[in-house]
């Protein structure tokens, strides 16, 4: 199954420290050693365990468990909140130790890094010797649990590092050319993280594959590539390439030209992380906007910093798939944190450069078929969140048709960012806008809805207020309406319909109301037949009020 040379990825070594958040926490607080520790983070279902120590795992705590359940399973459990910046700072030590031995390190996330092995393994006498050397070097830092895997491509190398757990050894070296065979038995779920980042819904793709009976990478890899593209689109192709042990995209064998670098001079030099991170955010936005306009995306970014003392630092960060604004900014921030808070730099950072690397065509991003441009949604989301920050979360809302008899009852406002549940209305079927609501006011929805209604006077031809009896009979046909919200304060009626009598609470005889639709003469000459201001008048306890105007 070995592909042509251009699609075969470079041989890569992945170094993985399992449960790095726990290891990092123990380095900062030695009292936590030998006690069960979990690190939790806010997930979709509340706080869940993202990392657990061996002691906690022995008691049945697993990643993905809710905090309360983890605490119930393991007495004396120490629960810590996730702190990516601290993890990154702690990992800086490992990075510095490893970069003494091999060049071209690429950081994936705190706890995992990778590097191409071609040069180093020749120097150290083979992949096995190289890996043994690296693992020993990290062990010297008092980090017991470190694993390494060597295979073709970062994805396969990462899996090789994970395979060490089953095989009970420190490192797994997949022989040259056997990467596809090594990948074949893995379940397709391992693709979720790699496809997710770029295209959104990697979890969906993996689910779909499993439901179609394609449960392992090997089975998925046997499908013809054209069929995969036709059925699953660009995310499917990316997943397929990974499953076949090929490169994610055709590599662009070129150094990015200078105009793609984004640099900023910081004056005065930044000594605090937040100052530097603020500048980095601007750089990251500029970089991605520039690449976007060219139709390119990058999978790796090189963060370079110069200090006042002329020191020069550089680190490469990679993200599965392609870097998005949020993932890029997080990685740059981690790096700045590691440099500034571990006393690596002796002075403030005076120049910051972001250079894209591993460029490829941005084929994955396309206009959503139903939901519009995802970039536009992202932009709108940021703007609306900013307004929420100014005015409070309830100030920005979207509307739902909640069902009801009057316009005011039907509107349900959902604060922006909270889930809209269209399924709330009983009897709603997909594809049908509003289910018929017994007793609803007919006609189109009004454009102005007053909640509470504005007091008004609905009078008959003699000028007496119109009343509606308990049986829904009007005392006289209405002839005029006066209300503050109408132009010129109201006037005679052109037409009317109703009343619709509603029992609000059938057990309470006083809670009744009657609704009228009336068209009030608007005083504009030559407007035509039937012209006027249409409004909805509610009559309750003998008092009239305008509930809505059909503006």
């Amino acid at each position, binding site marked *: 199954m070995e592909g042509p040379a251009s699609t075969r990825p470079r041989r890569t070594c992945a170094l993985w420290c399992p449960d790095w958040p726990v290891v990092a926490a123990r380095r900062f607080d030695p009292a936590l050693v030998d006690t069960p520790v979990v690190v939790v983070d806010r997930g979709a279902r509340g706080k869940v365990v993202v990392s657990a120590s061996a002691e906690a795992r022995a008691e049945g705590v697993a990643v993905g468990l809710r905090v309360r359940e983890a605490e119930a399973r393991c007495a004396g459990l120490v629960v810590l909140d996730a702190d990516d910046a601290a993890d990154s700072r702690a990992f800086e030590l490992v990075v510095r130790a490893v970069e003494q031995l091999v060049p071209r390190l690429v950081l994936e996330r705190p706890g995992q890094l990778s590097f191409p092995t071609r040069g180093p393994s020749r120097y150290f006498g083979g992949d096995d010797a190289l890996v043994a050397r690296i693992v020993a070097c990290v062990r010297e830092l008092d980090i017991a649990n470190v694993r390494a895997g060597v295979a073709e491509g970062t994805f396969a190398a990462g899996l090789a590092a994970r395979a060490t757990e089953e095989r009970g050894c420190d490192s797994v070296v997949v022989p040259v050319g056997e990467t596809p065979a090594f990948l074949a038995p893995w379940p397709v779920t391992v693709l979720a993280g790699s496809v997710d980042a770029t295209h959104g819904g990697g979890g969906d793709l993996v689910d779909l594959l499993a439901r179609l009976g394609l449960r392992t990478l090997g089975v998925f890899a046997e499908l013809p590539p054209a069929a995969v593209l036709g059925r699953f689109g660009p995310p499917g192709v990316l997943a397929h390439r990974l499953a076949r042990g090929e490169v994610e995209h055709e590599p662009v064998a070129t150094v990015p030209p200078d105009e793609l670098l984004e640099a900023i001079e910081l004056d005065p030099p930044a000594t605090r992380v937040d100052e530097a991170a603020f500048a980095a955010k601007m750089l990251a936005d500029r970089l991605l906007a520039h690449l976007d306009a*060219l139709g390119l995306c990058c999978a790796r970014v090189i963060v370079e910093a110069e200090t006042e003392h002329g020191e*020069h630092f550089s680190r490469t960060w990679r993200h599965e798939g392609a870097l998005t604004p949020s993932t890029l900014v997080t990685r740059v921030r981690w790096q700045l944190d590691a440099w500034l808070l571990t006393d690596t730099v002796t002075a403030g950072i005076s120049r910051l450069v972001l250079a894209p690397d591993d460029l490829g065509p941005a084929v994955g991003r396309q206009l959503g078929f139903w939901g*519009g441009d995802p970039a536009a949604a992202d932009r709108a989301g940021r703007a609306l969140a900013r307004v929420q920050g100014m005015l409070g979360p309830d100030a920005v809302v979207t509307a739902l048709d909640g069902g009801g008899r009057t316009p005011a009852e039907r509107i349900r406002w959902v604060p922006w960012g909270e889930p809209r549940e269209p399924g709330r209305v009983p009897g709603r079927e997909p594809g049908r806008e509003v289910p018929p609501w017994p007793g609803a006011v007919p006609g189109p929805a009004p454009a102005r*809805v007053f909640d509470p209604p504005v007091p008004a006077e609905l009078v008959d031809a003699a000028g007496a207020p119109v009343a509606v009896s308990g049986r829904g009979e009007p005392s006289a046909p209405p002839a005029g309406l006066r209300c503050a919200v109408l132009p010129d304060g109201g006037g005679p009626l052109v037409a009317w319909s109703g009343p619709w009598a509603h029992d609000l609470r059938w057990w309470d005889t006083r809670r009744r109301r009657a609704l009228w639709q009336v068209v009030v003469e*608007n005083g504009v000459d030559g407007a*035509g037949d039937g012209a006027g201001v*249409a409004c909805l008048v509610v009559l309750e306890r003998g008092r009239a009020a305008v509930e809505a105007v059909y503006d």
Partner: protein
Amino acid sequence: MAVVAVPFEKSPSETSSSETSSPETSSPDNLPRRDDEARARLHEVARGAAPVVLARDRAVPLPGPLDDLVPGGTVARGSVLRVTGRPGAGATTVGFELAAAVTALGEWAAAVEVDATLGPLAAAGAGVALERFAVVRRVPLARWATVIAALLDGVSLVLAEVPRGVALGDARRLEARARERESVLVVAETHGAVWPGGAAFTLHAAASAWEEHGASVVDARRLRVEVEGRGAAARPRAGELARAG
């Protein structure tokens, strides 16, 4: 005094090779750069994926009857439109029709209200996709211009009801912001206040006529709209926007 880590004679590019983790990729200064070739190669790679913006995409096409009333049938991005009309004449509905043109393209619209009376179901009736139509309710006057400027940054169309007391300076700044961000600002003078700034054209809802149908007198509507403005819109036009109930 802090220790200077690098001898003074050494040039930064030399230091980078000793300090950095990946001399080959991370300090591109050291490489023989073939930028022209690289550029050409990148251009070729990106050719299939680069976004193309046609001139007609920079304007929002108006669907339905407004198409005939507005010159060219489109609203240029970055322009300001004014919507006027007495209460009940249909100005709000005209505003919703404009918002519907944007959400129909899969983009976002937002409305800023003065007194929290907007009826969103009428917006849905005019064709607005409610999940892409955010409403900002009850904005204090002191924050009004700031909120609209923030919204213009992110959404394609902002339907803003003009409260009393908007300063001319704020209006000018919002016009500039809309132009810069290529968003459409629709100012609705539905609450008696006048927009102090300029506008590409004005849509005036003159009057609505209602037709009876079945038990309801408020059913089908004929909304008379008058359009006038600058440039191509200088010749006043009038037409009817009919919507069956």
